[in-house]
């Protein structure tokens, strides 16, 4: 499992891979038996599968009448088939510079989470599509399938493209336009972009199962600042002067909580899931606790 290339400065170092392996085993133990009924794959050899009958109504496709039943019962029934389900797991990592903050940086945590999710997806025989969002466009890796392809994904996640600005909305629109195959869509971002709502709207419109992993550093959740500070934006390098008294910090925390509540509602309204993710949360907790509780993974 260990790749020498993935070692240096890579979020996917040996320790990560070992943990991932344990996770996979644990994941199997936990999810065995559930997989079959819930996510149908094309491996069964059928592209269409009978699901149910219903009464014929005028305008229904005549090709789908079950003539055998008509012969026996002299009544018209339409055969319903399970739609073809070629599940693709979409993992979108925000590569904007604001993600490069914190220790470990939000980007590292997001990449690790994406890698782990990709690994789980591949292990569940899903197609996995990984993409970086940045500079107003999506930079995807072609969808892969098969557990052995995981290293391609790691390599892709290791090579973070240099981006100047996020342009999250434009990037999401770009990805949505090129999207192939439905399935869970996980956005890993700090959403610190004025266009975050637009981006979420774009992604939700793809009819994919939208999950937002909102990655925030502990310093962002509960900032400790010198009393008088000029906050320099990592992206725009614009400064904001603050006098960080208790009052301001209190209002910051309130604002943050309000924002998170807003995002939760926004996602819920679109059938999505919002998961706040602090970068100091261990990966195992993320996968088996946070995401399961929210129903992102099952």
């Amino acid at each position, binding site marked *: 499992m260990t790749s020498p290339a993935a070692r240096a400065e890579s979020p996917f170092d040996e320790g990560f891979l070992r943990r991932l392996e344990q996770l996979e085993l644990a994941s199997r133990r936990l999810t065995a038996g559930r997989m079959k009924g819930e996510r149908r794959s094309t491996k069964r050899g059928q592209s269409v599968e009978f699901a149910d009958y219903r009464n014929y109504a005028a305008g229904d496709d005549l090709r789908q009448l079950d003539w055998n039943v008509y012969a026996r019962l002299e009544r018209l029934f339409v055969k319903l088939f399970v739609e073809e389900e070629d599940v693709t797991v979409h993992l979108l990592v925000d590569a904007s510079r604001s993600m490069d903050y914190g220790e470990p940086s939000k980007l590292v945590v997001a990449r690790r989470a994406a890698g782990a999710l990709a690994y789980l997806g591949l292990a569940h025989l899903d197609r996995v599509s990984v993409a970086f969002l940045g500079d107003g466009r999506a930079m995807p890796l072609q969808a892969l399938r098969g557990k052995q392809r995981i290293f391609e994904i790691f390599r892709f996640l290791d090579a973070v493209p240099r981006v100047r600005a996020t342009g999250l909305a434009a990037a999401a629109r770009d990805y949505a336009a090129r999207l192939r195959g439905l399935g869970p869509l996980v956005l890993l971002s700090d959403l610190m972009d004025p266009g975050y709502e637009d981006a979420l709207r774009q992604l939700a419109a793809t009819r994919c199962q939208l999950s937002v992993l909102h990655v925030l550093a502990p310093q962002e959740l509960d900032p400790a600042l010198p009393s008088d500070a000029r906050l320099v934006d990592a992206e725009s390098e614009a400064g*904001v002067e603050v006098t960080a008294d208790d009052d301001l910090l209190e209002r910051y925390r309130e604002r943050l909580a309000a924002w998170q509540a807003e995002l939760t509602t926004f996602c819920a309204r679109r059938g999505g899931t919002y998961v706040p993710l602090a970068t100091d949360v261990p990966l195992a907790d993320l996968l088996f606790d946070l995401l399961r509780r929210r129903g992102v993974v099952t």
Partner: protein
Amino acid sequence: VIAPLALLGLLILPIIVAFYMLRLRRRDVPVGSTFLWAQLVRDVEANAPWQRLRFSWLLVVQLLLALLLVIAAARPFVATDAELAANVVLVVDTSASMGAEDDGVPRIEHARRAARGVVDRLPVGGRVTVVAAADSAEVVAAETDDRDAARAAIDGIEATQLPGDMTDAFALASALAARHPDSDVVLVTDANAAQIPGVGVGAPVRVELVGSSDANQAVAALSTRARAGGTELEVFVAVNNPSGADVRRRLELYADGDLVDARELAIPAGQRSEAIVTSVPPAATVVEARLAGSDALAVDDAAFAVVPRSEPVRTLIVGEGNAYLENALALLPRLEVYAVGVQGYAQALADAEDAGTPYGLFVFDRHVPDTPPPAAAIYVGPPDDGEFGTIGEVVDGPAVGRADPAEPLLRYVDLSTVHIGRARTLTPADGVRTVLATPDGLPLVAAGTVGGRDVAVLAFALGDSDLPLQVAFPLLMSNLVDAVAPPAAGYLPPSLALGEPYALRLPASVEAATLVEGDRSTPVSLTAGRGTLPPADSVGVRQLHGGDGTVLGRTAANLFDAAESSVRPGDPARFTELGRQPSAAQAAREPSRTEWWWPLVLLALPLLVAEWLLFHRPSRRAAGRWLRGLRAAMRWPRLGRRAAAPGR
């Protein structure tokens, strides 16, 4: 505001605000995104009147601090209404009642406090003269604008044991106030002095009334009398209760320091209780009456009496027999009266000489001996010249002139209804003064010292007037006898009022004398036996010692002053109405100033601490940590959790 220039310091306030607005030296803190912060700050900026000024407690505290300091530096004052004039004569009552205690604090201390208050309220540049007044006035601080000096002088004022008399003080205050058109007389007193000055003051008089207690009892009278020829001593004591409550007090009598009698006296409020004690040994020289226990005023709880020596004065009446005269003299307890005819005079003298019992007093009725008698003498209607002066023609029906009220020989003697049918003109000898005269100045009664002996003379015979039929007669005779043959308590009267000087008349042979009072002894300067006994300033017995240590006399000084013993504060209007109403100019005088910068400075100190704390601003979490650490260090039990634990 006294220093308005300091208000320029207010310019510091906008400067502080400007610093807050211009504070650009902020530490750059890289953050992932200012996305949220920018929203927050926009919120603030939208509400703030200044674009960059944000509310900060630190700013508020600093502004307050600067404001306080600037105001304090400007020395603000409260203009109190024109209360006192620029020239104040401050009279502090130091009479005996000021030694009373009100709630455990001497009344004089209350008075000093009030007096210091007056000094504090002086207008700017005001001058004050501090006068301490008991029975006379003493200037302790003369017209000074140095308030500290005035306060020091006030602190040195102590209560005396003297009865109060404001006459002196008011005369002095009046003179001092007259020097300055804008003057006030402020009297700090309990206003219970008996003597209200008869003079007005040419300035408004204000009274700072002190005192509250009235719980005082006093020994109001103490006198002794020999009875049964000097074999018994009768002591008369009166105890006054001027307070508003019925009391029981224990009265103790001491004879020469030994307790000889004690009794409980029940004294109704405002009443007086009297006792006659006969158990005092007749040999006692000094009797002291003392009220046991304590009350508001201690000075009047003890009184002293000097027992007159009971040696009788052998008196010889020389004449044809005069029942009036003999009866009047026989009434005087200290005289042992003998009578003899003119012919038997020489024989009687010789007999007394032989027996070693010389006469101490001779009374010649219508007779003048050839040679002056060997002792003091009283001549009644002398027909011839004698040592007392020369006798002239007969005057018919002389009227009795006005008696000098200060004349001790005429004390208690009312001669206004006396008629004299006939008298002889009298020309007093040297050393003999006229005591009573006709309106024309013709002497009727004279007394004096001739040849070292005291003599008195009546220029008319008793049978030529209705004097013997009047009450005045025995009193006059008693006074004359006292004058020529002084009471035998030595050379001092048995009792002298506090503050009263006494003219000493000692035998010329006495060259030096010392006044001993307790442990204190004061030399008395004498010139040919004459001198002045300094007035007593405290209750007690004083002894006059001769140069060889012999006791020349004793005298007691007591505060028998009902007004002083009644320590209840009196009516201040008695004094204020002696003053003049303030004039319009005085009413419109410049207000006085009380500075109040120091509370501002006191307020600034905690603000400074608050500013420091705010600046270093321990975060809430740090404060919580600190508190937890403190709690752990002090092992405060966490009751809630511990109580819940066993249930789980």
